[in-house]
């Protein structure tokens, strides 16, 4: 699958395109197919997101998973500070990244 991602313009938060909006949660990401560039251009123009780009991913039982470790770290948070990730209460969350 193709996933569109970027950083929120104001907060800098990592965000994922859901099909109609941006979410901080990778679980909400949709497959943008070949529409990623067009959506990115429109959204950048709307000043909601900074430097959006399309990545490869796969749909798994737990939801979309970016193909590259860099984007998985973006999706969760720093592996060395579980308390600062999006899932601070889940001790297994780091395994999803690696």
């Amino acid at each position, binding site marked *: 699958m193709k996933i569109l991602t970027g950083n929120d*313009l104001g907060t800098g*938060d990592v965000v994922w395109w859901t099909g109609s909006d941006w979410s901080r949660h990778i679980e909400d990401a949709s497959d943008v197919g070949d529409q990623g560039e067009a959506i990115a251009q429109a959204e950048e123009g709307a000043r909601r997101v900074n*430097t959006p780009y399309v990545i490869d991913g796969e749909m798994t039982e737990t939801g979309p998973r970016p193909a590259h*470790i860099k984007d998985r770290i973006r999706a969760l948070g720093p592996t*060395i500070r579980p308390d600062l990730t999006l899932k601070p209460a889940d001790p297994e969350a780091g395994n999803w990244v690696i």
Partner: protein
Amino acid sequence: MYRYDQYDQNLVDTRVEEFRDQVERRLSGALTEDQFKPLRLMNGLYLQLHAYMLRVAIPYGTLDGRQMHMLATIARKYDRGYGHFTTRQNLQYNWIKLDDAPDILADLATVEMHAIQTSGNCIRNISSDQFAGAAADEVTDPRPWAELLRQWSSFHPEFTYLPRKFKFAVIASDEDRAAMRLHDIGIQIVERDGSFGARIFAGGGMGRTPVIGKEIKDFVPVTNLLSYLEACIRVYNRHGRRDNMYKARIKILINALGVEEYVRQVEAEYAALDKQDIDPPLAEFERIAAYFAPPAFEADAPDTVDRSDPDFALWLDQNVGQHKQPGYAMATISLKPVGGIPGDASADQMDLMADLAERYSFDELRVTHAQNIVLPHVKKADLYALWQALNQAGLAEANLDLISDIIACPGLDYCSLANARSIPIAQKIAERFADAGRQRDLGELKLKISGCINACGHHHAGHIGILGVDRKGTENYQLLLGGSGAEDVSLAKITGPGFDEAGIVDAVETVTNVYLGAREQGERFVDTYRRVGMEPFKEALYG
């Protein structure tokens, strides 16, 4: 310490308001990201993996208690309660919101700090010896020279858009504690016939093409220093490549021209410069130097220390250095607890270090390029009380220059340029060698980790260096041996094929075992490597 005059303060305050307007225009859509990016970078604001990152300049690594307190306040108020001290003696915040950035810069300006020129293709923060003004082996305090360079290079109109970033380091001792020869221009202040002058090295650097700086001038008096450096950079600015960012640093130009031709052009430029337009009168240098006058040391401070507490004695031996003033010492606070994140400090720790500096070190702190903090002027009689306070806060790790005192860049946990994580490798190595006795037995061993070829973690200069690479989407780690950023400067060499995350920790242990088996009396790891060569290490690693 240097204090802003009204011109400095106006300059910084005006810049804050200029950036506030630029941020508003970006958020309103009046500026595109392409237009805004160079403006935010000029103010130290990057976009990293998880958020905006703000890099705050700490000139030559020197700050006082109120500045450290402000860094703590900003960490609490705008970030997530911590900051990261870097190999350029700066501080980085990892979780900044764009619309908070102008307020942060305004808060910094209230304590004479800023983030100007901490990014972009300009002259960056001047780095120096963390023991400046205190070390027994220095010929003079290098910081007035560094401050002179800071003032000259700040907003220098000709050098705002260089081919690439440009880094200076200034030291004033034969012992190099600032990796001086791995900077674009390194300066060693030396004494000749009763006068001080600058010995100049050019074309050093790490990154993807590591080069040791070459000496291009043996003595430049302070009254001509700026005009000589102006000539050095003008030649670079004229001929440095702008078509390929990977070949744009001055080291590439000097290698292409040859050092003799580069020096010939610098000398020709220097001869033609109107030096009166550039060089300050000696009185101005002396005005700056007066800010760095030694603090009011007690002349009769006791020169002995009670070593009866064995844990304190270990810290004393490892983390405390000889001061030029009898009765005083230089204390390094390690930011490398076993299992911790090299260079990270919480807001509470920053506040404590500020308090301790105010109480015990004439209100001065230093940031080291090895990502530790120094209290430079501690009375020996106060060392035990200082250690007790640090120990209570988990800041008394007695590991300076040992294998767990690891330099590590933020790596793939934070950095958008990184290919692999650095910090977990540092943590695992520190845990493997957690036994304090084992560390001390290994002796001085500088281990440095970078998460990509840009080498922010100085892996080329590590006795043991580790470079994280991306091998088909998987983190892989190359091992390097034999580097040094000190006065015995050398570039580390790759041992061979890389290792995975577990393998690199084993590999480090393997090479330390080779060292222990081969070392001769008094040899450090790097000394043994230089004597026996790479082969025994390769044999042990790869069979």
